[in-house]
């Protein structure tokens, strides 16, 4: 077990190094930030001064090792645009993104499991067919377009919800979040719903498939033979079993949800990490791009590692396969 964890950990670190190199070398051969930061009238001396200030005059590989050394110390360079440390900039934006991701997850699971279970329980009913058609739409509709439609319907036509931005945050037990202010919740609702749609479609599919498979199993028939009400059979016997695969898949999807928030944040002008990265790509703010990508890669590697290890703890067969 310990061997397995250590091996997975080593792999994760290797992936991290590989990604950092790809990201750094890639990003640092694109464009020229001096062109963007310095006005067109500036002379050569001015340009050289800016380039030196940014450390751009040194060879790329020297820059990389300096970067690596600093990165290990938590310093990923200063934003060209904002002039503050890139990592600090990202950490500032992180709570907004996490808030969005978590609320969207709650929506996806809270709506998806009951809908999927119903669709699996009565697969031939009109309701089930509607739900499944909706789930296919959820997979097919590009997130950004759904976001635009939501804005058009709820903000432009009906004018009941704001079109974008992150309203005021409330404070509760020392935590700052939109969840603790009514206006903030109003701002949060549409983006969270938008971000939830794809996962909602996924959860519906998983819950439906699980429901259909589990209903055919002997222990469900046996539970009914004990004279249990269908309500108890479904919500205790079936639900507990289908939660295992759903939780496993969702654990892995958490990371992709953070990545997908790039789109939703841009559509709804939500001031999170995703909007920041798009703006930074636009302005070639390389330290921020690199820092964002590394933060995301770290989050991903961490999530994958935790899910892998948890899974091997839960399932002895996986553990044996990993040793072999």
């Amino acid at each position, binding site marked *: 077990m310990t061997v397995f964890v250590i091996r997975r950990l080593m792999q994760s670190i290797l992936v991290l190094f590989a990604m950092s190199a790809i990201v750094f070398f890639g990003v640092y051969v*694109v464009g020229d930030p001096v062109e963007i930061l310095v006005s067109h009238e500036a002379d050569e001396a001015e340009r050289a001064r800016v380039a030196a200030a940014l450390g751009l005059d040194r060879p790329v590989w020297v820059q990389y090792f300096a970067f690596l050394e600093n990165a290990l110390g938590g310093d990923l360079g200063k934003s060209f645009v904002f002039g503050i440390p890139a990592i600090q900039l990202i950490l500032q934006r992180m709570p907004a993104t996490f808030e969005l991701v978590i609320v969207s997850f709650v929506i996806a699971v809270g709506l998806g499991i009951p809908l999927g279970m119903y669709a699996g329980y009565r697969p031939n009913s009109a309701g089930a067919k509607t739900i499944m058609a909706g789930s*296919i739409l959820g997979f*097919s509709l590009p997130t*950004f377009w759904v976001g635009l439609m939501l804005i*058009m319907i709820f903000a432009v036509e009906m004018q009941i919800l704001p079109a974008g931005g992150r309203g005021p945050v409330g404070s509760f037990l020392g935590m700052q979040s939109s969840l603790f202010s009514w206006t903030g919740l109003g701002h949060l609702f549409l983006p969270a719903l938008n971000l939830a749609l794809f996962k909602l479609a996924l959860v519906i599919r998983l819950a439906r498939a699980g429901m259909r498979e589990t209903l055919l199993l002997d222990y469900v028939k046996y539970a009914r033979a004990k004279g249990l009400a269908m309500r108890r059979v479904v919500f205790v016997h079936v639900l507990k079993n289908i939660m295992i695969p759903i939780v496993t898949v969702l654990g892995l999807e958490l990371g992709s949800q953070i*990545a*997908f928030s790039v789109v939703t944040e*841009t559509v709804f002008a939500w001031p999170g990490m995703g909007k920041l990265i798009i703006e930074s790509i636009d302005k070639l703010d390389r330290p921020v791009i690199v820092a964002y990508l590394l933060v995301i890669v770290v989050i991903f590697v961490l999530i994958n590692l935790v899910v892998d290890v948890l899974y091997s703890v839960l399932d002895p067969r996986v553990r044996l396969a990993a040793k072999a």
Partner: protein
Amino acid sequence: MSAAHEAVFPAEAAPARAEANWRRVWREFAESRIALAALAGVILVVLAAVLAPLLAPQNPYDLRQLDILGNLLVPGAKSSAGYTHWLGTDDQGRDMLSGILYGLRISLGVGVASGVIALAAGMTIGLFAAYAGGRVDAFVMRIVDVQLSFPAVLVALILLAVLGRGAEKIVLALVIVQWAYYARTVRASALVELNKEYVAAARCLAFGPARILFRHVLPNCLPPLLVVGTIQTAHAIALEATLSYLGIGMPLTEPSLGRLIANGYQYMLSGKYWISVFPGVALLLAIASINLVGDQLRDILNPRLRR
């Protein structure tokens, strides 16, 4: 050699059987009316894209045809030149219908081009990984696993941040995002096929790996490849649209549907919905019908689900 070859490989000499098989696939496919409607949708979209220059009332990129005074016309309005803009015009006075037809052409073109290249690359890598086995196989599949553990939109974002902009960069990014799916699919079916006796027989006849893989193994990997290919193409189109919407996709000079939608965003807030909505509907039609066709193909071709 020919006679011996025929005797050992009835499969190669049996196009008739394969034909009957495809006929069966078509029959089962046609059982679902939704799938047929989706197939009609795919054909419609492809025709619209291919024939865009003939169908479009206006060439939206020919500046001489633009009428800047006729900008932001509502759907159904008549232009000063006298013809009707069924879907309205955009801020430059471009006919939206024409813009959508040309945009569809670009979206579909990028999606299909990247799909074909990714398929060719992934298929070749997957086949040889399966054939080589051992460390080569393990190494390739490890790369595939790592890449697939990152969501496509993130990988594409990283690549475009690294590569910069342009049509060929987008195609390259989409290829890199997709090849791993094809490689994994082909490898899985190829491993099964490689264990069958006809491959052992082919090896006994001292055929080279390329011949064995492409002439004997590959045809048997086609059904799952077809399913993955269909669904991946839909993904590629959606991803390209998303990236273009974010402003890091297709350049302004070659506006795909995603870019058209992004252009209309600012006007949407003032109630001029058509600039964003109609390209969106076209995009949705393309993606949803390809997805539905793929779903039905998967149900038919998956032996586990055979009724």
